[in-house]
């Protein structure tokens, strides 16, 4: 590549750049050594999108926290939440994130078989999560605790449903990634798309950590233990 010509000679680096030598180019991301590799730039751009998504979720968390006690005489979180179901959902999503990490290792080694196996496991665990959540929502609505019942339930369904919608769209993305690896192989642009997908999938699990801890677990605490 032409940027090789422009690259600064590998002189001695200060200690704080200890991880520098493992980098593909000598680019530091600070302008020295030419432009950063494409995966750094693409990863950064998608990271910005993910952070904006996190900020969207933070607004939903804030409205849930404000409206949590406004049950309008209806059922409270403690009466509604089933922690066993939440534990299974959490396990599904965590295992799914792990499988997604395994898929990225398989992609790095250009193993189509293991990539597809790992992605299939990722997808099935994600699908199990979505189905469990849909069943929980259907049960709540059937018991008269739908989103129209109280401000608490409106904010609950918006927050958790928004996460569920993200996971569902992630599943569609995952299926298209499997098809693209199959049809187009490990081309650079496909690998960059896959990089974005793994970041998306891991970020969804981070959002879920906040949901199961601060919505479900805190929600089932007895009233005298609530802040």
């Amino acid at each position, binding site marked *: 590549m032409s940027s090789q010509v422009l690259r600064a000679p590998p002189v001695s680096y200060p200690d*704080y*750049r*200890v*991880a520098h*030598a*493992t*980098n*593909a*180019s000598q*680019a*530091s*991301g*600070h302008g020295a050594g030419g432009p*950063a*590799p494409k*995966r*750094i730039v*693409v*990863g*950064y751009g998608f*990271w*910005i999108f993910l952070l904006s998504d996190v*900020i969207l979720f*933070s*607004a939903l968390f*804030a*409205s849930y*926290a404000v409206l949590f006690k406004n049950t309008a*005489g*209806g059922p409270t979180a403690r009466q509604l939440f089933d922690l066993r179901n939440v534990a299974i959902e*959490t396990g599904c999503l*965590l295992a799914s*994130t792990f499988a997604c*990490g*395994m898929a*990225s*290792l398989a*992609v*790095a*080694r250009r193993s189509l078989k293991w990539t597809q196996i790992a992605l299939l496991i990722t997808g099935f665990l994600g699908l199990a999560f979505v189905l469990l959540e849909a069943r929980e929502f259907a049960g709540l609505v059937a018991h008269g605790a739908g989103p129209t019942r109280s401000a608490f339930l409106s904010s609950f369904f918006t927050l958790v449903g928004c996460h569920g919608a993200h996971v569902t769209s992630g599943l569609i993305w995952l299926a298209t990634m499997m098809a693209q690896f199959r049809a187009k192989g490990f081309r650079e642009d496909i*690998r960059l798309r*896959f*990089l974005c997908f*793994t*970041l998306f999938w*891991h*970020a969804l*699990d*981070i959002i879920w*950590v*906040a949901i*199961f*801890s*601060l919505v479900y*677990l*805190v929600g089932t*605490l007895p009233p005298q*233990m*609530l*802040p």
Partner: protein
Amino acid sequence: MTMNQNYDAGSHVGEDRPPGAPGVTRTLEREIGGYVLGLSLAVALTAASFWAVDTRSIYGPGVALALLVLAVAQMGIHLIFFLHITTAPDNTNNILALAFGVLIVCLIVFGSVWVMNHLAYNMAPMDHLMRGHG
């Protein structure tokens, strides 16, 4: 954290590094080991959260705070072991963006709760009005 210092977000994708480049070799065992360690820590923190709800060995009003701390710790684990956010130089931009995101999230969440609690405190009690229309 030291064993992950050679990672960056998405280092597994698009290895445009020439073969035999200097640096720490990333064997499959090492990389799987990193994910397994992250998974184990995440499972341990998740289990601790579910345990904290049931146990009586934590001071009652402190449980919610404990859950918050455990959740933040687990998010950190996910960021380091799964998203590979590190202190490497080519990750500086990611770290800065993350720091700004955390600032905005804290402003939105704690700011909303703070303001709305004060608003509720300054309002006349509405319970008797609400009850009739529940």
